């Protein structure tokens, strides 16, 4: 399980990430890859802004009566032969999944990509209880081999370079007996992973997937993938478990379609993902394949507490990853520095809600509030506004540094007293200007080392404008 406390160590972790050359090389691909592809997809689709509005409206309507839609989902799911389980905490969710598996003697579980499983620490828990977990999404598979956590919500192994992946495959595949490839190109690596995973799909006694959304009116779960691994995970074994958080429900299939219109475009720049799969209950007599049992585990883990607060808009998130693909801070430090499951802007908005401001207070501060995330968010989540909300909570709880508080207090006291402010700043600027001499800059400056470690500090002109203006008029 990812240690939530790592979120508190963002300052150190981000500094390390900036010095990690492999990581920096991997992150350089964000700009030319994801950003350019999203831009193209949006330009190709003239109605993108309308589609955004429709998706936002669908999700906003859902959240207004979330309880009702969840109850409808449960009723419909049951009508189709499925079972819904309610989990308030990560521990509840882990226990429910474990019992479903052990009651049926499951030893091997195949698994599609799900961030909720990361959130509740499922893999480690199941393995400690004697169940082998096989990640079937290529990126998740790579980081499982590396024994690492995902660093991105749709590209979990984005921090790995191709040679690093080839190394991992060399260590882990040579003994499997599966067909091996030269490992010279990404295509070689994909082919080799596919050859190894094909065998493993058949070994699994149960499959677990997440859900991109749940449809209340039909009781269905929907996943989108590009590898088809999700379909094998949920149709081959006898037991299919869907793990989803409560805000994933939407009232109707049409609402789900509204989300699909913006999801892949925002995420990978595709018009649609390669596979969009709707699962409704277990296999029916007329079906050619499918699981004998279909269970949905609905996890709250703090979501219901967010409803009605200024941070509730994060619940509109459809996990496309556009915010992190476009965030200059994520682009500089990658996902692991954020220390928990959700990195980037959405992580900075969501993690304080789930782990507490005390633990996660650095994340919403690590933003220049540039707003690029909000600009590309298909669900128009006002991320900078939510960062400010967490900063307000942090300040009110006196969790920020004493130096910052003192600085703000002195500055605020002065700024509310224009005459005194004029005298004080006038004197300070005069002194600074003289000290700067003819170079008109400081290479280092008392109390400003954060600035001057990498930048010269430009000297002020000397006389302030307002002091000059007074004499002029």
């Amino acid at each position, binding site marked *: 399980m990812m240690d939530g406390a790592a979120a508190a160590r963002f300052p150190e972790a981000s500094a390390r990430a900036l010095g990690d050359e492999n990581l920096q090389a991997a992150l350089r691909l964000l700009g030319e890859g994801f950003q350019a592809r999203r831009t193209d997809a949006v330009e190709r689709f003239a109605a993108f802004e309308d589609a955004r509005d429709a998706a936002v409206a669908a999700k906003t309507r859902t959240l207004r009566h979330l309880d009702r839609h969840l109850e409808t989902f449960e009723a419909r799911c049951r009508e189709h032969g499925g079972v819904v389980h309610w989990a308030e905490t990560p521990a509840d969710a882990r226990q429910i999944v474990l019992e479903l598996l052990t009651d049926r003697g499951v030893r091997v579980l195949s698994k599609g990509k799900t961030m909720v499983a990361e959130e509740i620490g499922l893999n480690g828990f199941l393995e400690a209880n004697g169940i082998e977990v096989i990640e079937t999404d290529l990126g998740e598979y790579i980081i499982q081999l590396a024994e690492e956590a995902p660093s991105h919500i749709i590209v979990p192994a984005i921090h790995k370079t191709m040679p690093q992946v080839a190394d991992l495959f060399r260590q882990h595949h040579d003994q499997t007996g599966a067909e091996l490839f030269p490992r010279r190109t990404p295509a070689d690596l994909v082919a080799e992973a596919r050859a190894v995973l094909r065998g493993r799909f058949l070994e699994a006694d149960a499959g677990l997937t997440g859900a991109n959304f749940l449809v209340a009116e039909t009781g269905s779960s929907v996943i989108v993938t590009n590898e088809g691994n999700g379909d094998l995970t949920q149709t081959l074994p006898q037991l299919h478990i869907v793990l989803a958080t409560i805000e994933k429900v939407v009232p109707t299939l049409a609402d789900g379609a509204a989300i699909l219109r913006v999801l892949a475009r925002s995420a990978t720049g595709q018009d649609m993902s390669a596979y969009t799969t709707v699962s409704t209950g277990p296999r029916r007599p007329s079906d050619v394949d499918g699981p004998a049992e279909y269970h949905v585990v609905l996890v709250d883990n703090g979501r219901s507490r967010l409803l009605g607060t200024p941070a509730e808009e994060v619940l509109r998130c459809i996990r496309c990853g556009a915010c992190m693909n476009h965030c200059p801070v994520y682009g500089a430090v990658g996902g692991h520095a954020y220390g928990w499951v959700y990195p980037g802007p959405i992580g900075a908005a969501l993690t304080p809600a789930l782990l507490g401001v005390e633990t996660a207070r650095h994340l919403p501060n690590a933003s220049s509030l540039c707003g690029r995330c909000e600009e590309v968010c298909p669900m128009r989540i006002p991320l900078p506004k939510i960062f400010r909300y967490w900063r307000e909570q942090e300040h009110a709880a006196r969790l920020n540094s004493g130096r910052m508080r003192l600085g703000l207090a002195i500055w605020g006291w002065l700024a509310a007293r224009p005459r005194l402010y004029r005298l004080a700043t006038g004197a300070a600027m005069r002194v600074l200007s003289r000290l700067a001499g003819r170079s008109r800059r400081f290479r280092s400056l008392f109390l400003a080392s954060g600035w001057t470690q990498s930048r010269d500090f430009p000297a002020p*002109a000397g006389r302030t404008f307002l002091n000059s203006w007074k004499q002029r008029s």
Partner: protein
Amino acid sequence: MSVPGSESGRGRVGLFVTCLADLFRPSVAWASVRLLEQAGFEVTVPDRQTCCGQPAYNAGDLPTARRVARGILDAFEPFDYVVAPSGSCAGMLRLHLGRLFESEPDTATRAEQLARRTHELTEFLVDVAGWTGVAASFPHRVTYHDSCSSLREMAVRDQPRALMAQVQGLELVELGDRDVCCGFGGTFCVKYPDISTKMVSDKTAAIAATGAETVLAGDLGCLLNIAGRLAREGRPVACRHVAEVLAGTNGTDPIVPVGP
């Protein structure tokens, strides 16, 4: 005071100087006064102004931000327009001031009225004044940095370019990744100096790639950050606020003089 060639009587503008222009670079404020007068407005500089309150607001210190905001409301109420040579400060006044007074309806109304009259300088000159009278010459290759708040809060992108196009001899070369932040972000740049350094270094590299002699922008925060980094890297690129070039007051040195 009046400037030769100015029209008159188009309305009263209260100049929101911004704390950075006031303290670091008065030439930006002088240039703003000159431009607004050339465009035919009567300019007043209320002497009770200090700062827009963003340092407190963005640090989550709402009581302090509120205290500063009350001063702004009092100082700027009498004017037809409030104009700031900064997208960031104008954005604070237009989009955030009202939020500070959610529990005081009367003050919130005053804040909303102020918000409607608030403009960023280039946006005001182009969209409100419809002014096309730039009489300046700047025979240099320049590039332009869009501040995030200008771009995303104030929808300022074409306006400075429309004005720069009227400057004689000015050749504009657009930046690569021009919608990406320079890493200033107010206190962000000192709270996370390493990340900020990475961001500003990407920006200065993009600036260097244009081959421009001068980088212009509409926000002094970004400019101080970029100028500081360019100077540290020893790159011979001058930094100026776009208002200085538009007003033709190029006699002042750039933000950090180019050279050792």
